């Protein structure tokens, strides 16, 4: 693990020496996120979001455990119990608003983390495993967030549960029995609420476990960096502590200010008023949408309004098409390390890729974010279809072709040269 010049942990007091012999946990921490982990010296603020994501995971677990102490997973009382937390429990409002807005901030941070990966091709060898584990974490987060949103048993909770579990009904043959099995009834009720509560409590700890694997896999090649040039020698790196603990600490401060603004002044802005109505299985709210962080995938789901037919025979019905596309839109990320064939990592040095990133993928994602929250009517349906088509085109066609035909800009010899403008080692060697 890590580079040859990484500093080793040296216990100084008798206690730490004793501890190091019995359970070298301080040594592990020192080498993982301390002064013993050498990190490229040129990381910019886009490299803050891993630590920020870790912070919000801890925040969610802490506030979540507290909320679970006051909540009751029963359809008779869940809605009232949520209001009980808001009105009667000491600081209950703070815990619940921090948990709800914390989920949104967790997703903001994760989306920035993922798009950092897209731009700097962080998914490329030798870091494929880090990327794959990251996609797994994202899928687990989506499942956890969805189940958490059901717990207050408001209108959006209920209808979100209904719609999402109905997705599984689209699967041929086994769909309907599978859906009944998942919710434990013909429609979401007590069985569904209880199992969602149980899983909502469990999954964050599964996420924490996969996060440990994610960081473990990261420490084998070490962090990537904005040039995409691998670390060659000690002058390319600085120790994680104190340099990046300080930089991440600053970024965390900035994010906590934004978080506090949302939490204390706009706590319901990212939510939906309909969720303050108790669940009513007989009436669907006029405009049901998921939480904002699911909008792009919801837009893709809704974009399929016609069957895939050949000579008038339906091959795949529209409903199944939408479900397949929605899952595929995330599963395609698993294949990124092999779809992008360019040997150059960083978008800085990839002129054509960079154009498609800023003028293709980013506007497409922003459009999907908007369209997922829009009403299912024209022109939004057609726009969703265009954006969905571009989304898949980007990953499956544009990215592989661009990565083969573009001529990248010359890379710096080393990270040291990129930072200082010169590298004596590089000057001594003939250009490659």
């Amino acid at each position, binding site marked *: 693990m890590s580079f040859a010049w990484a500093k080793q942990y040296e216990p100084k007091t008798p206690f730490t020496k004793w501890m190091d012999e019995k359970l070298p946990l301080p040594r592990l921490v020192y080498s993982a996120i301390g002064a013993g982990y050498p990190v490229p010296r040129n990381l910019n603020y886009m490299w803050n979001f891993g630590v920020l994501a870790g912070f919000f995971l801890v925040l969610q677990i802490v506030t979540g455990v507290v909320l679970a102490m006051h909540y009751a997973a029963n359809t008779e009382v869940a809605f009232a119990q949520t209001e009980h937390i808001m009105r009667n429990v000491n600081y209950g409002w703070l815990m619940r608003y921090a948990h709800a807005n914390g989920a949104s901030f967790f997703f903001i941070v994760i989306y920035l983390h993922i798009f950092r990966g897209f731009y700097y091709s962080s998914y490329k060898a030798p870091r494929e495993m880090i990327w794959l584990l990251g996609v797994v974490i994202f899928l687990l987060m989506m499942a956890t967030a969805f189940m958490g949103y059901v717990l207050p048993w408001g209108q959006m909770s209920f209808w979100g549960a*209904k719609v999402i579990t109905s997705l599984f009904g689209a699967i041929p043959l086994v769909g309907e029995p599978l859906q*009944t*099995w998942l919710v434990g009834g*013909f429609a979401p*009720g007590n069985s569904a609420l209880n199992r969602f509560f149980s899983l909502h409590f469990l999954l964050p700890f599964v996420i924490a476990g996969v996060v440990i694997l994610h960081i473990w896999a990261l420490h084998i090649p070490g962090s990537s960096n904005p040039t995409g040039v691998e670390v060659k020698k000690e002058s390319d790196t600085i120790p994680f502590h104190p340099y990046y603990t300080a930089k991440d600490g600053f970024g965390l401060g900035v994010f906590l200010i934004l978080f506090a603004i949302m939490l204390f002044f706009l706590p319901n802005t990212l939510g939906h008023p309909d969720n303050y109505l108790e669940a009513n299985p*007989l009436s669907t709210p006029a405009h049901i949408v998921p939480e904002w962080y699911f909008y792009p995938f919801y837009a893709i*789901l809704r974009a399929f309004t016609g*069957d895939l037919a050949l000579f008038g025979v339906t091959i795949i*019905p529209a409903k199944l098409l*939408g479900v397949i596309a929605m899952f595929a839109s995330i599963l395609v990320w698993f294949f990124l390390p092999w779809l992008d064939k360019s040997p150059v990592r960083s978008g800085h040095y990839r002129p054509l890729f960079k154009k498609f990133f800023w003028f293709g993928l980013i506007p497409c994602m922003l459009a999907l974010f908007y369209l997922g929250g829009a009403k299912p009517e024209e022109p939004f349906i057609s726009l969703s279809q265009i954006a969905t088509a571009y989304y898949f085109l980007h990953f499956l066609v544009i990215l592989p072709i661009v990565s083969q035909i573009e001529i990248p800009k010359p890379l710096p010899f080393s990270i040291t040269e990129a930072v200082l403008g010169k590298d004596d080692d590089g000057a001594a060697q003939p250009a490659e």
Partner: protein
Amino acid sequence: MASTVDGTAEGTEDGVRRRDWIHIAALSTAGVGGASVIIPLVSQMAPTADTLAASTTDVDVSAIEPGQSIKAVFRDQPLFVSRLTEESIAEAQADDGVQMRDPETLAERLGEGNADLLIQIGVCTHLGCVPLGAIEGEDKGEYDGYFCPCHGSHYDVAGRIRKGPAPLNLVIPEFEFANESVVRVG
């Protein structure tokens, strides 16, 4: 056991060790035991006995005038019971021959011996929302029937899917007339 007659290594015979048997037996037993634990773990997720017990619903339809609908509850889901007007029947029958995603005539949907009482589960066949249109004043969609606000499926006056992502017509549950005025659904 001592070496075998042909002098192969101790305890083996044609490369098969006596201990292989106990390995296979132990792992098979553990495997079957482990697999059988999955049955209760999976099955506990299925609907409970009391959920399955509430499987029929009686609906009094005597008070429904032509053009009116009521919402009842059947297996935790909304049930639309509507008495069609003559105009609606004519409109639905006129469309019987039109190409549809899930072709059905109005007569097939009403069932034998039932002239005008349309009984449907009020759940969009796309992703399970309750379509609008059963209650006076709600959006009836482009085909003057039902409109699902979630993903924009349009059903006609007979509950047949005409536009949007839903794959099937609104589901007609099994039902029978218990007497003149009561329908037993389920």
